[in-house]
């Protein structure tokens, strides 16, 4: 299992990919600093524009898409996946380390970005800062699980992933109430609310326990789909 993990880490840490992720991760911090230059935004405004729309709805999924989708998609395109699939190991021992490697790379970028952004915005309130950081990292895990699976089912994973981020998470989930029940962006925000109800005492979110279960189901569900796909697909 560690071989697949190490192999994936090396595959996914190209110079350009890291540079793009660094730029993306720095954007919410810059926006938070800019917002503080004018009149101080309310928590609701900060959540709407920076945490929800930008960090959880755009930056986090984009960073994770760039990391997680190629984890399998590149192996399929390069026709090297057979090296792994022809090993006497369970398919879960291929999918799980691939997913963990994608999270290992993406999570620090988003965690640092979320931490710095909320630390600046909430003037050092560590409870709120940690709530945002944990919620963002949970979002990374869910997105990673979804995009790992996407990379296994289509060679156009980046294209479909972008479409999903822009149309589903960006457009529909912002304006169509029902879509929020199927939006990783909103699961992530609901987790933040649940972790610090004092600071984020607004909005209509399911209870923390419910959202925790949903997050685990999303994460585990896509992982299960990936393992199933590995077992059933024709490997090129």
């Amino acid at each position, binding site marked *: 299992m560690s071989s697949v993990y190490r192999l994936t880490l090396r595959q996914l840490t190209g110079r350009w990919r890291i540079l793009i992720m660094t730029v993306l991760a720095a954007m919410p911090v810059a926006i938070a600093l800019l917002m503080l230059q004018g009149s101080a935004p309310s928590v609701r405004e900060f959540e709407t524009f920076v945490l929800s729309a930008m960090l959880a709805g755009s930056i986090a999924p984009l960073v994770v898409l760039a990391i997680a989708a190629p984890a399998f998609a590149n192996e399929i395109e390069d026709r090297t996946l057979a090296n792994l699939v022809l090993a006497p190991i369970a398919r879960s021992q291929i999918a799980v380390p691939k997913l963990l490697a994608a999270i290992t790379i993406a999570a620090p970028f988003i965690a640092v970005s979320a931490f710095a952004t909320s630390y600046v915005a909430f003037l050092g309130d560590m409870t709120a800062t940690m709530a945002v950081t944990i919620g963002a990292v949970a979002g990374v895990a869910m997105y990673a699980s979804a995009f790992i699976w996407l990379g296994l089912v289509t060679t156009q994973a980046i294209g479909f992933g972008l479409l999903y981020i822009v149309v589903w998470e960006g457009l529909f989930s912002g304006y169509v109430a029902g879509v929020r029940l199927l939006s990783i962006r909103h699961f992530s925000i609901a987790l933040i609310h649940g972790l610090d109800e004092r600071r984020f005492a607004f909005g209509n979110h399911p209870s923390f326990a419910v959202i925790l279960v949903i997050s685990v189901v999303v994460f585990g569900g896509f992982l299960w789909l990936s393992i199933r796909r590995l077992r059933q697909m024709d*490997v090129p």
Partner: protein
Amino acid sequence: MSGAPVIRVDGVSRWFGSVVAVSDVTFDIAPGITGLLGPNGAGKTTLLRMMTGLAATSTGTVTMFGEPVRDNPPLYRRIGVMSEHETVYGFMTGRQFVRTMGRLRGVSDLEKAVDRAIDLVDLAHAQHRTMETYSRGMRQRIRLAGTLVHDPEVLLLDEPLNGADPLQRVHFKRLLLQLAAAGRTIVLSSHILEEVEELAETVLLIVNGKLAASGGFRAIRAALNQRPYHVRVICDAPRALAASVVRLGAVDAVHVDPDGAVVVLSRNVLDLQLELPRLAKSGGISLRRVEPLDDSLESVFGYLVER
């Protein structure tokens, strides 16, 4: 075929939409080298992928050591597969690649096994270079080392000699013969007749997704030799040569092309090759060129399928 079958392919078909890639193929494979021979696009790779479990069958079953190969990872401890694709992890050194393959296959005493596999393919001198610097032939060899690192009982090799230079081919063939002599079961896919002839004791001839012939190579070669060939002869007296050639027993038909070439249809090319110069010499005819018109492998396979 002697000995118990290691691999059993039973009524296997595979289609992609309306395209039938492999159609109702049945055969057994015993230890030794078996050649999977057929022209490009015949269905060899699809068949081999089903034999490795990488692709599902549409109908039929593939078993190895009595177990299904599809979705049966523990079986891969006993199997080594080298696909036709030459892509490698370019950022890895050859040794790292072989080590990774060994680790994934649960090899004990890993470093010793890596040394042995790299020595087998004669790449010790380049093992610490990244594979992106390797030539095509070197990539093939390091991939073979990765395939051999866990000392598998069965080897399935898809066009393994692609990109190898003549020296490497000799080395590779010797290695396969050694492995076969040690009791391994080796299936070697190729579209090159001579390549398979030099190595395989048994040949499975695949044409248009069907098993066109199987058995010892000599029997298949004899069948090939009996097929009718068109031979084009250019000489300074085509009509005189045609008149002489038509009397030969090995010749079925003769005609003279509008451009003056003699086209001979023969079922015994060997006899024709011997008789032509003799006839030309006795008739004072000067032969300028003798060329087979349909000596491509496709026509050979096509003939066997039509039989």
